[in-house]
C-alpha cells in the first residue's frame, strides 16, 4: 500500500488554500472511473449481442441505444472526466498559478456529470438521440457540452496567459490547443449535420469524427504523456523542439483528416485526396512525436516501475500503432478493403481504450499519487495494467484480423451472410477479451481507492535541473522573436482549422449542391408522415451503425449493391444516414427489394427468416406477433421501403438529362452502372435464369439449405419453419411439390415476386445446383397418373376456369397472368406437379395471399378431382422444359 498522509495537508484551511484543487482532482477521477465502468458494461452488452443476438431480450435497451451510450460514455464520461482531473493537477504546476475558480470547478463538475452525462445517457436510452458517430447525445445536451467547454476554457486558460508564450511547456500548448479547438469543432460535428443534408452533412460529420479524436482526445492525452514522463523519470523530455514540431504538425494536419472516413463516397474527390494526404503526413508527425516520447523515457526500462509511467509508456506504443494504422487505412485501395469492417472498430478501440485510456489512467494515477491523504493499492494497479494490456491487445488484434477477413469476403462475390458467419469466432474472442479488460478496470477502481495500511513512502524523484541555466541565454531579441513566431503559428493553426472547414466542409457542400442541382430529377419526392416517423425510429435505434446508406464508387460495391449513390439521393436526409460500418448490407436501395411482410417478420424475429442473422429483434414494435404490427413497425417498414425509391423512379429514363449534364467521371460511373439495384435478393421477372449444371450434389446444398431456407420452409422442407405462420402466401411445403430443375433454377435465381421468396443470386452456380437437388429430394409427390376417363372433364373445367391465369397449356402464362390483383405469377403446371391431396386442398380453399381463389363452392367434387388429374398430367409436357430436367 502506498499513501500520502501528511497531517498538515489534511486541514481544511490548508486545503482551501491549495494551488492544486485536490477536491476536484478526486471528484473527476472518481466520476471518470464510475462512468468508465458503466460505459464498459454498455460495450460488453453490445458485444455479447453479436454472439447471442437475443441476449437480454426485452429487458435491455435496444442494441443501437446501448451503442450510443457506450461511445459517448467512453469519450465524454470516462476520458472527459479523466482529462479534467488531470488538468486540475497539472495546470497550476505548469502555469504556476491556480485555476480560475474553485466554485467554477464545482459548477463544471456538476454540469459535466449531471447535465451532460446523466441526461445524455438517459435520453439516448430513451430514444432521444442523433444518429451521428461520436455525436450521439441529442442537441439539447450538445448545447450543455458547449457551455461546459466554455467554462473549461475560462477555468484553465487564464493561468497560462500570465507567462510568455515562449516559456510554455509543450503540455501547456496541448491543453490550450485542445480547449480552443474542441470548442470550435464540437458544434461543427454535433449541430451542423442537423441542418446540412446528406453527403454534405456527412462531410462535416467526418470532420468531427476525426476532430473528436484529434483535437480533443489526442492533445489532452499527449499533454498527459509529456507531463507524466518527465515528472516520473525526473529528467526533462528529450527535445522540446521535436515536441513543438509535433504539436504544430498535429494541430495543422489533424483537422484536414476528417473526410478519410468517407473515401470512395460521393464527397468530391478533391476533399478526399486532401484528407488522404493529410493522413499520410500526420503519420510522419506521429513518428516524430513518438520518437521524442520514447527517447524521453530512456533509462526507465521497457516496463517502468512507476505505475503511472508504465501506463504512459504503453500509451505511447499504442499511439504509434494506431496512428500508423490510421495513415495506412486512409490509402484508397486499402480503405476499399477495410472500411466498414471490424478493422475500423479495432482501430477506434485502440485509439480510445488503448492510447487515450492508458494516457488517461497515467494522468489520474500520477495526480492521485500526489493528493494529500489518499491511499492507493499499487499491486492492484500493476495487475490492472497487465490485464488491460492483454485484454486490449487481444481485442484489437482479433478485430483487425476479423476486418481483413470481412473485407476479403466483401470484395468477392460471397453471400453477405458468409461474412457474418466468418466473423462469429472473432466476435466471441472480442467478447472474451472483455473479461481481462473489465477486471483491469475494476482493479484500477479499487487500486485507487485502496486502503492505506502503511505510512507514506511517497515520491522520491531526483530531478535533473541541468540546462536550466540556459534560461538566461539567447540574447534579448530571441524571446520576443520566439514569442512572435509562436503567436504566428497559433494563428496559422487556427487558420488551418478554418481552412479544413472550408476545404472539407464548405467547398464539398457547394460542389454537392451543384451536383444535386444539375443531376437531380425535378421536384423532390418527399417522405410521407409515416416514412418520416420511420426514419426517426431508424435513427434512434442506431440502424445506421450496422447498415450504411451509401453505395460507394468501388467495383465491389458496384457489383454487390448497384449504381453508386449520387449526391441528390440524400438531399432530404437531415441528418445524413451514410453510416461508417456494415454489419448488415447497405440499405441505400432497400426499397422494393423485399416485401413489407418479410420486413415485419424480420423486425419481429430476424432469425426466423434469416437463420444466420445477428440483427436485434424489435418485438416491442408489435403486439405479440408480426401480423399484429404497431405503428412503429409499420412506420419503420414504410421508411425502409422508401429507400432508393426516388432514384428508382428516375432510373433510367428520368436520368437521361442528368447524364447529359455531367462529365464527372464518377457521376457517369453511377449512371452507367449495369443495374441500379444489384441486391441479390431482389426479385426479377421469370424466364431469365442461370443454366445450372446437373445434377448438383445434395451434400453441398444441405449447408445452404440450413443457412438460408429453413426459417421459412423448415428443416424438412414442409413449409413449417419458424416464420411460416406469419407469411402469406405460406412457404411452400416442398414434400407436396415436384419441380423440374429448370423451374427451380428460375425460382432461385429470380425469386417469386409478390411473395417472401427472395432471389438467391448471391449463391454460386454450384451451390444453387446443389440446392436444387436438396429441394427435389424433399418431394413425396406421387407420380401415378389419374384415371384417363377423367381427363376430358378436367380439361373442360380447366379451360373454363383456370386457363385465363394458368395458360391454355398450363404454363402459367394465361392472358390474365400479368394483371392479377396480387401480382404473383400463376403456377406453371408443365414444370411443377403438386400431390393430389395438396392440389385438392388448394382447389378447395384457394391460397391466401395470392390471387388463387377457392373453388370448392363453384366446382363439384368430381370436377375438382378431374381438374387435379388434368393439371398433373401436364407435368413435363412443355417442349422446351429446360436443362437437366428429370
Amino acid at each position, binding site marked *: 500500500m502506498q499513501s500520502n498522509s501528511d497531517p498538515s495537508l489534511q486541514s481544511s484551511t490548508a486545503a482551501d488554500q491549495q494551488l492544486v484543487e485536490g477536491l476536484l482532482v478526486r471528484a473527476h477521477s472518481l466520476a471518470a472511473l464510475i462512468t468508465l465502468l458503466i460505459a464498459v458494461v454498455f460495450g460488453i452488452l453490445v458485444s455479447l449481442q453479436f454472439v447471442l443476438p437475443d441476449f437480454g431480450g426485452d429487458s435491455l435497451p435496444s442494441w443501437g441505444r446501448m451503442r450510443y451510450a457506450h461511445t459517448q460514455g467512453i469519450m465524454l464520461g470516462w476520458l472527459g472526466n479523466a482529462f479534467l482531473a488531470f488538468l486540475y493537477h497539472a495546470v497550476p504546476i505548469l502555469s504556476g498559478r491556480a485555476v480560475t475558480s474553485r466554485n467554477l470547478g464545482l459548477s463544471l463538475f456538476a454540469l459535466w456529470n449531471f447535465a451532460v452525462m446523466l441526461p445524455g445517457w438517459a435520453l439516448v436510452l430513451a430514444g432521444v438521440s442523433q444518429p451521428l458517430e461520436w455525436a450521439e447525445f441529442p442537441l439539447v445536451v450538445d448545447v450543455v457540452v458547449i457551455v461546459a467547454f466554455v467554462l473549461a476554457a475560462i477555468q484553465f486558460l487564464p493561468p497560462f496567459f500570465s507567462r510568455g508564450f515562449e516559456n510554455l511547456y509543450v503540455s501547456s500548448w496541448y491543453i490550450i490547443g485542445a480547449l480552443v479547438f474542441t470548442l470550435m469543432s464540437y458544434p461543427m460535428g454535433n449541430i451542423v449535420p442537423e441542418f446540412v443534408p446528406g453527403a454534405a452533412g456527412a462531410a462535416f460529420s467526418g470532420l468531427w469524427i476525426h476532430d473528436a479524436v484529434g483535437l480533443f482526445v489526442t492533445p489532452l492525452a499527449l499533454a498527459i504523456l509529456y507531463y507524466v514522463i518527465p515528472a516520473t523519470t525526473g529528467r526533462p523530455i528529450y527535445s522540446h523542439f521535436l515536441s513543438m514540431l509535433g504539436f504544430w504538425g498535429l494541430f*495543422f494536419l489533424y483537422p484536414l483528416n476528417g473526410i478519410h472516413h468517407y473515401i470512395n463516397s460521393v464527397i468530391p474527390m478533391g476533399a478526399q485526396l486532401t484528407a488522404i494526404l493529410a493522413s499520410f503526413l500526420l503519420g510522419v508527425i506521429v513518428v516524430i512525436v513518438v520518437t521524442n516520447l520514447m527517447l524521453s523515457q530512456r533509462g526507465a526500462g521497457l516496463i517502468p516501475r512507476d505505475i503511472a509511467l508504465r501506463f504512459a509508456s504503453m500509451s505511447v506504443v499504442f499511439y504509434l500503432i494506431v496512428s500508423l494504422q490510421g495513415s495506412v487505412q486512409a490509402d484508397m485501395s486499402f480503405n476499399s478493403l477495410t472500411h466498414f469492417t471490424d478493422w475500423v472498430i479495432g482501430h477506434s478501440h485502440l485509439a480510445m481504450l488503448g492510447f487515450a485510456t492508458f494516457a488517461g489512467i497515467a494522468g489520474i494515477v500520477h495526480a492521485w499519487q500526489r493528493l494529500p491523504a489518499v491511499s492507493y493499492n499499487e499491486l492492484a494497479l500493476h495487475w490492472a495494467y497487465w490485464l488491460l494490456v492483454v485484454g486490449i491487445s487481444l481485442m484489437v488484434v482479433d478485430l483487425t484480423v476479423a476486418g481483413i477477413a470481412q473485407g476479403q469476403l466483401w470484395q468477392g462475390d460471397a453471400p453477405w451472410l458468409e461474412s457474418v458467419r466468418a466473423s462469429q469466432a472473432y466476435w466471441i474472442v472480442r467478447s472474451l477479451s472483455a473479461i481481462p479488460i473489465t477486471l483491469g478496470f475494476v482493479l484500477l477502481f479499487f487500486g485507487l481507492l485502496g486502503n492505506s495500511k502503511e505510512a507514506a513512502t511517497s515520491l522520491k524523484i531526483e530531478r535533473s535541473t541541468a540546462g536550466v541555466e540556459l534560461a538566461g541565454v539567447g540574447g534579448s531579441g530571441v524571446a520576443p522573436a520566439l514569442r512572435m513566431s509562436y503567436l504566428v503559428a497559433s494563428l496559422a493553426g487556427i487558420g488551418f482549422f478554418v481552412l479544413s472547414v472550408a476545404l472539407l466542409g464548405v467547398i464539398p457542400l457547394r460542389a454537392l449542391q451543384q451536383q444535386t442541382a444539375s443531376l437531380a430529377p425535378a421536384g423532390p419526392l418527399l417522405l410521407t408522415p409515416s416514412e418520416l416517423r420511420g426514419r426517426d425510429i431508424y435513427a434512434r435505434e442506431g440502424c445506421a451503425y450496422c447498415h450504411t446508406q451509401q453505395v460507394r464508387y468501388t467495383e465491389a460495391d458496384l457489383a454487390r449493391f448497384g449504381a453508386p449513390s449520387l449526391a441528390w439521393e440524400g438531399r432530404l436526409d437531415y441528418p445524413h444516414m451514410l453510416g461508417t460500418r456494415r454489419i448488415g448490407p447497405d440499405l441505400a436501395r432497400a426499397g422494393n427489394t423485399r416485401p413489407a411482410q418479410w420486413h415485419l417478420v424480420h423486425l419481429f424475429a430476424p432469425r426466423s427468416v434469416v437463420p444466420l442473422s445477428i440483427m436485434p429483434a424489435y418485438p416491442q414494435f408489435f403486439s405479440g406477433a408480426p401480423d399484429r404490427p404497431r405503428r412503429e413497425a409499420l412506420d419503420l417498414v414504410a421508411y425502409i421501403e422508401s429507400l432508393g425509391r426516388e432514384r428508382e423512379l428516375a432510373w433510367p429514363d428520368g436520368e437521361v438529362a442528368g447524364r447529359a449534364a455531367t462529365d464527372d467521371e464518377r457521376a457517369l460511373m453511377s449512371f452507367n452502372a449495369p443495374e441500379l439495384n444489384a441486391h441479390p435478393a431482389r426479385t426479377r421477372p421469370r424466364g431469365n435464369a442461370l443454366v445450372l449444371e446437373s445434377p448438383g450434389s445434395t451434400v453441398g446444398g444441405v449447408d445452404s439449405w440450413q443457412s438460408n431456407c429453413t426459417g421459412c420452409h423448415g428443416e424438412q422442407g414442409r413449409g413449417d419453419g419458424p416464420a411460416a405462420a406469419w407469411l402469406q402466401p405460406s412457404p411452400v411445403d416442398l414434400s407436396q411439390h415436384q419441380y423440374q430443375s429448370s423451374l427451380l433454377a428460375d425460382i432461385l435465381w429470380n425469386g417469386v415476386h409478390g411473395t417472401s421468396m427472395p432471389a438467391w443470386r448471391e449463391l454460386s452456380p454450384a451451390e444453387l445446383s446443389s440446392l436444387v437437388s436438396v429441394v427435389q429430394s424433399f418431394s413425396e409427390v406421387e407420380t401415378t397418373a389419374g384415371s384417363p376417363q377423367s381427363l376430358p372433364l378436367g380439361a373442360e373445367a380447366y379451360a373454363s376456369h383456370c386457363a385465363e391465369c394458368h395458360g391454355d397449356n398450363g404454363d402459367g402464362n394465361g392472358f390474365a397472368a400479368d394483371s392479377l390483383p396480387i401480382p404473383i405469377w400463376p403456377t406453371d403446371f408443365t414444370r411443377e406437379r403438386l400431390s393430389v391431396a395438396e392440389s385438392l386442398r388448394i382447389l378447395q380453399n384457394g391460397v391466401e395471399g395470392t390471387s388463387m381463389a377457392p373453388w370448392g363452392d363453384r366446382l363439384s367434387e368430381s370436377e375438382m378431382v378431374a381438374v387435379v388429374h388434368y393439371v398433373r398430367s401436364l407435368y413435363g409436357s412443355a417442349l422446351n422444359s429446360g436443362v437437366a430436367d428429370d
Partner: protein
Amino acid sequence: MISAVIVISFLVLAAAFALAYLLWPGVRARVERPKYLFQQQLALYEEQCRNGQQPAREPGDED
C-alpha cells in the same frame, strides 16, 4: 492544387522552425528552455508537498 498548398505550407513552416533552431543557438536555448522550467516547477511543487507546504493560491487567485 489545394493539397499541394497544404503540403508546401506545412513543410515551409516546419523547415523555417527547424532552420532557426539549428542555426541560432539562442533560439535553440529558448525553444528548449520550457522543459527545464517545467522540471523546476515540478521539483518546487514536490519539495513543498514533502515539507507539508503545498503551494498555495495567490491572493488574487481567491474566489
